């Protein structure tokens, strides 16, 4: 509302369109409607996803509570390596199964041990080849699942970064043309400062944590905002 009033207060220039560009969502996150310039539509969508959704409110976003520590990153690594551990456990289990042999004395026991050892070897060879083949066959499918779950979230975050960075890089004269309201410009500058505090790696880590939380809270991760 403040933006619109300020816009109407200025005398319209001949070359200026009726609706002066204004990022309503930056001043009033709940603002509905507004002008139709692409930046307003985009920022509105972005804001509705990030500022009121998964990443919490604007104030919380600005307080840098989303910084992550290196320790958490290490935790992430251990999470990713978890499937490998399960494979090793299975291999150990197989060893246990095949090592369960009755110990009969004499020549017969020697043959028995050799025979069981041979069976065990072939089973393990097949098991390892099977693991490798299965992983290879499913890799692309798994990648596509993960990619589909994250690409649009990353895209929306990138929009926030792009819009705030581009605005901050404009000369003051162009900023004033695009955003006549001083309060709007101030809000967006503050938003840009907050965004710059979060590196690409930080953002990726935040997303990963949100995925983990979704997985724990429900069976299927709800990554698509």
């Amino acid at each position, binding site marked *: 509302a403040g933006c619109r009033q300020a816009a109407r207060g200025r005398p319209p220039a001949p070359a200026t369109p009726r609706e002066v560009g204004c990022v309503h969502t930056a001043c009033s996150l709940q603002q509905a409607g507004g002008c139709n310039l692409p930046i307003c539509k985009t920022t509105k969508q972005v804001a509705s996803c990030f500022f009121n959704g998964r990443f919490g409110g604007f104030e919380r976003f600005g307080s840098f509570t989303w910084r992550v520590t290196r320790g958490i990153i290490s935790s992430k690594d251990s999470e990713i390596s978890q499937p490998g551990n399960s494979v090793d456990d299975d291999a150990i289990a197989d060893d246990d199964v095949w090592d369960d042999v009755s110990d009969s004395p004499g020549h017969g026991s020697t043959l028995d041990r050799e025979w069981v050892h041979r069976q065990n070897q072939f089973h393990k060879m097949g098991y390892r080849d099977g693991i490798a083949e*299965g992983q*290879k066959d499913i890799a692309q499918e798994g990648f596509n699942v993960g990619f589909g779950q994250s690409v649009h979230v*990353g895209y929306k975050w990138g929009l926030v970064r792009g819009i705030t960075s*581009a605005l901050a890089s404009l000369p003051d004269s162009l900023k004033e043309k695009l955003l006549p309201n001083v309060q709007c410009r101030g809000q967006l500058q503050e938003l840009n400062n907050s965004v710059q505090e979060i590196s690409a790696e930080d953002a990726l880590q935040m*997303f990963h944590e949100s995925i983990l939380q979704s997985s724990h809270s429900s069976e299927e991760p709800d*990554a698509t905002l």
Partner: protein
Amino acid sequence: MDQKPKDDFDFLEPSVLLDETHYQTGFKNGYSEGLVSGKEEGRQVGLKNGFQVGEELGFYQGCLDVWTSLVSIDQDAFSARVRKNIEQLAALLRSYPLSNPEDEQVQDIMEKIRLKFRVITASLGTKLEYQGRPTSSKQDVEDL
């Protein structure tokens, strides 16, 4: 001719067959396990790669939105050459198959987008650039 008697048999054959049976049993079990672990590993790589690709494209789109909004307000905000480059960037971004990571053209289009973006920012005289990890992203692509 020296032919084998009919009732003769390869005394090693049963042993070989049994070995093959054990191998196949192990392979079958391993394959099932591999499908589970492989899908999760692939998904983790896809999550990381997808977020990075999405973020970079979103960054360029966000910058584009600011520039196009400005041009719609003031045609003289940018030179004709810059406006042309902005339109070309818009076309490139529209052509990127965001939902199809297997498309063979994604890397080529991304390189064109990056190049066009640098042309625009150079013309504008701004230090604006994507702060992600292009090198790391390239590594991921090469790993695939």
